């Protein structure tokens, strides 16, 4: 299954930004380092990805670094989709 980066990006914007927040977010925007998604909220993002792609991401792989951009998230998800 191809990883739909736009779908992940849309989810982040919808769930983690205020409704009328016009902050521009790209595939390379730092989500964790940039304070858009904190390490606690990362758990709900991980759950979303697991549900969407029917995968299990081990806690050891769900690091702040791996969740820092849409690009790095997509790379992480791809590993487990392939596996």
């Amino acid at each position, binding site marked *: 299954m191809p990883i739909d980066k736009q779908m992940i990006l849309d989810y982040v914007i919808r769930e983690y930004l205020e409704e009328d927040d016009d902050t521009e977010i790209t595939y390379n925007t730092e989500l*964790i380092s940039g*304070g858009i998604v*904190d390490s606690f909220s990362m758990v709900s993002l991980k*759950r*979303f990805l697991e*549900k969407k792609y029917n995968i299990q991401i081990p806690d050891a792989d769900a*690091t*702040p670094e791996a969740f820092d951009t849409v690009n790095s998230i997509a790379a992480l998800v791809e590993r487990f989709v392939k596996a």
Partner: protein
Amino acid sequence: MHPTPTYDERRRNFDWSLAEQELGYAPGAKINIGWYCSDRICQLGHAAKPALIWEDNTGRSRTYNFDDLRVRSDAFAAFLLDQGLQPGERICLFMDRLPELYIGFLGVLKMGGIVQPLFSAFGEDSLWTRLDNAGTAAVVTQMKHVRKVRRIRDRLPSLRKIVVVDAEDAALKELETPLALDSLPPPANFQVFPSTAETPSVLHYTSGTTGQPKGAQHVHYSLVSQYLTAKWVLDLRPDDIYWCNADPGWVTGTSYGIIGPWSNGVTQVVLDAGFNAENWYAFMAKRKVTVWYSAPTAIRLLMREGDELVRRFDLSNLRHLCSVGEPLNAEAVIWSEKVFGKPFHDTFWQTETGCIVITNFPGMKVKPGSMGRPFPGITAAVVDPKSGEPRNAAGQVGVIALKPGWPSQIRGYWNNPQGYAAKFAGGWYLCGDRASIDPDGYFWFVGRDDDVINTGGHLVGPFEIESALLEHPAVAESAAVATPDKVNMEVVKAFVALKPGYEPNDDLELEIMNFIRKKLSPLAMPQVIAFVDSLPKTRSGKIIRRILRAQEFGEPVGDLSTLMND
């Protein structure tokens, strides 16, 4: 040069007046934390010394020396007074870690206000609960968070002013006023509010087992113990570069992220960015950090990133490491000795104590996994929580208790004298944590004595979560308890019984998680949800969280006969 006195030497004949003398404070005189953290340091000849070196994740940085602190905090205070705000009113700071937060903290105190810092990740329900309870008159915030304030302001009759620190050309709404800190004109002949020892200073909200969060009321005299503990426990010295990871929305971020270092005239650095191990090490190397006050959750996250990453950075300036928020596990202490060449020193205290009360003192033998020994001037014991009777035998478990009377002990909970009275037994203040004491006098953490959840060093109250869960259309009843977590020590687990017509599934689980995250905060979001048919209850219908919590930790449930009849 005299060697640093040992713990036993410090303890011998200790008296808090020692700190008063060092601060030049005489009992009965005026004492204003804002003045002590800025004007006094300038008077001591350090006006040009850097006080705050701030940067964010994009590399932007701002530096303020102690004279800047003095002038900018005066200007901030004068601005608030010009807005019609009065001494004694609660003024909330609801911001990320911007310089305006740190300097505004001093500004509110200098105009005589009660500063109410709130964690900027709070959702609108958590924010409303705390602003409504405090009768807050003004909120100082930033564009990123002002929307949350806008959504609740109509339900806050006391709120008269919303100050936005980064509005620039943005369109503001009713009650809102822009403030550009660095452009404020220095006020002529500003007079710092003449507060005295018992004048209220800071109002921090903290969670308990029952009811909504309580406002812990501090006074200006707290400075005496915050100054001395920062000097002795964090071992702050004039040439140090100090980094405290804590957000000033919580008590560590004010007692030791503002008051402690600045009353000692120490330079502190702030990184306004989320967690990233590489960025943290790079920041410490670049800023040549010497003293680092962190938290077990952060340390465990760093451990997970491995030893190799640490070695890529020059952290040779690090001289002293401390930790706070939750018990520091022995593995983390041993790891820090391996990679930094020095151990993290665990410190124990809480919002209500205002300062470190049990600690691994510099120079004292660190027993990995222990909380350390009481700070000089603090009388601590473990006691029976009902009678307050000390449990003196070595290894016997009781609730950590302190003899009242240290300078930064809170003076009560805001509008809640009964809640505060319930924190005492047999003349002791009860901390709510269970521990034992070994033959050398070291305290060893065992667990909480109540249902409060300590997640990543932050206390979260189950009642607040359960109340919010009930607002979800699918939830019939719920119980929020702690469940063990490798990184955060504990995280929130919610047991949820659904209303007829709703079926448990992954979509609903995620929806409920996000519902709580947005209403309350990411900390309060259940990281695990268990859908159940019913919850264990007393005969009168009260949910018994203790059974669920015990199951999570694999502990015996104990005698439930009295609970069942509750």
